[in-house]
């Protein structure tokens, strides 16, 4: 007769100016209770000033087995980094 409540992923902003970061998950029947549970489970020591919850089933993730081809294009484009360019030391502020 019992069944698990849906799973929610929890994201917490630890202080103003920072982004929300994934911290774990909670089970809850609805979003409001998910936020309350997340408060109790993940912020018992002032770890946050803001909480997001997202249904785990709504998260779309990239495939780890495709990580190679997925991120390879960035790997081969070293000219996107400033260190790729040789500028004499005498030239300042660049």
């Amino acid at each position, binding site marked *: 007769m019992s069944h698990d409540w849906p*799973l929610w992923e929890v994201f917490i902003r630890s202080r103003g100016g920072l982004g929300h970061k994934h911290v*774990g998950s909670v089970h809850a*029947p*609805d979003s409001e209770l998910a936020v309350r549970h997340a408060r109790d489970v993940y912020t*018992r020591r002032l770890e946050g000033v803001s909480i997001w919850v997202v249904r785990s089933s709504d998260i779309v993730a990239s495939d780890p087995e495709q990580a190679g081809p997925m991120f390879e294009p960035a790997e081969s484009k070293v000219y996107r980094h400033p260190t790729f360019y040789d500028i004499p030391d005498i030239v300042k502020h660049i």
Partner: protein
Amino acid sequence: MYTTELGKADPSAPVSIIQEDPALLEAFEVRVAADEFIEPKDWMPEAYRKTLVRQISQHAHSEFVGMLPEGNWLTRAPSLRRKAVLLAKVQDEGGHGLYLYCAAETLGTSREEMVEALHSGKAKYSTIFNYPTLTWADIGAIGWLVDGAAIMNQVPLQRTSYGPYARAMVRVCKEESFHQRQGYEIMMAMANGTAEQKAMAQDALNRWWWPSLMMFGPPDANSPNSAQSFRWRIKRDSNDDLRQKFVDITVPQAEYLGLTVPDPALAWNEAKGGYDFGEVDWEEFYAVVRGEGPTAKERMKARRDAWNQGAWVREAADAYEAKRQARAAA
């Protein structure tokens, strides 16, 4: 709190790695050997998954059951300060259980299955919680010794190879230090109190010392699952090494309290730079693993009662959500 590896008599004991695809297995072994973290959607051998599900769920169960011996004293704490502290500690243990259940769920098991396994007596939890808490001094001894042993066990697990487990351990370890310090503070108050209070503190140390040493698990020679767990970085230190470390750190703490560790064989060994100590009664350990501890039945009854008596709350929350959705659809 922490559970040791209690794989004996477990029907889900590690499956063979022989059936695995050799190329995938090799790539996995290379990643783990390079101290990379394995994440939920990564390929992993079935034996790795099963070992982790068993270990993480046992660990979670231990946190949950661990609320019971201390909860027993919440209403009888000697001051409001002690009560607030103990309440916060018990709440932390519940939180630790939840972090760990979530980590186990990323491996494809469900909360329902795990709770079911605990309540039916199929799943194991740390033997330490099958000992009774007879006096207030036990609350001090548990924080000092049991949480102390737990910290010793859990710190290396922050680098365990499975990412969600390692991250849960980072949170747990951050919170655990307060548990040990509040316990030692209780012991200090009692050891420096009346003769009767000091005797209670000594009695608690006498009863909790050996069960705390058992928390590190069987001797390395009798720990059959260790080799594979080491190779896969699920386990990072041997049971005997951690036990030795715990004794070396804890004995001076007992001396500071003016209490005597209940082990006649205990002696400083200059050559090894550590203490020699007596043999743990492993017969007792295995009896407690089999559920013959003084309070095993009581603990499981308390868990099942809590679950069953909370059923109406879960049902009400479900009914409320169903009604809300029906209204939204209308």
